[in-house]
């Protein structure tokens, strides 16, 4: 049963620290998405890749967030420096073009 995996599942860090979240998409999926979910803003797209090429990162605060896909089995989302307002659940999802998106379990980030 193929699944998207994400690490870490939970992260508590202090303001100003760097946070790195990792995602392994489902093998064979060519599109990878990063989302952030909060009670106030709902589910927001931060960035996405197709065939490892970044297509859109307009949802990310570019001064502190960066997303990369160093190879087909790994996508990363970094926040440096982190701020309390970054506290949220971050989801990675993968899929094929014109298909559904399959979400990982999420990383619950708390910045104090």
């Amino acid at each position, binding site marked *: 049963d193929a699944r998207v995996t994400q690490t870490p599942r939970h992260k508590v860090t202090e303001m100003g620290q760097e946070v790195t979240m990792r995602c392994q998409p489902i093998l064979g999926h060519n*599109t990878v998405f990063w989302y952030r979910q909060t009670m106030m803003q*709902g*589910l*927001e*797209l931060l960035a*996405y890749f*197709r065939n490892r090429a970044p*297509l*859109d990162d307009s949802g990310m605060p570019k001064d502190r967030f960066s997303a990369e896909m160093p190879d087909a089995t790994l996508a990363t989302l970094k926040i440096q420096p982190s701020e309390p307002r970054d506290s949220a659940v971050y*989801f990675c999802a993968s*899929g094929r*073009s*014109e*298909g*559904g*998106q*399959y*979400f*990982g*379990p*999420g990383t619950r980030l708390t910045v104090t």
Partner: protein
Amino acid sequence: QQPVQSPQAVILREGEDAVINCSSSKALYSVHWYRQKHGEAPVFLMILLKGGEQKGHEKISASFNEKKQQSSLYLTASQLSYSGTYFCGTETGGTDKLIFGTGTRLQVFP
């Protein structure tokens, strides 16, 4: 231009039916539907592509009216397992980029 979902919340008894609507101000290429249970990730239910089709998945089906820029999700003979928050995700232009609605919270009681 977040799609608008209605109603915001639904309470049902097992066996009852429900309809959740999703409306966009923009022309749509596709509409996705997802269900998310508390503390879990969203789970893909179905995708409806441009063409005004209807799809079914067990007792859950959906329609897409391209002209009205709307989609509806139909849950028939609801089960306890249907409880959760339902999100529509709308795509314009065939980019795979989704904008999610604010969600409809569905609770099914015995």
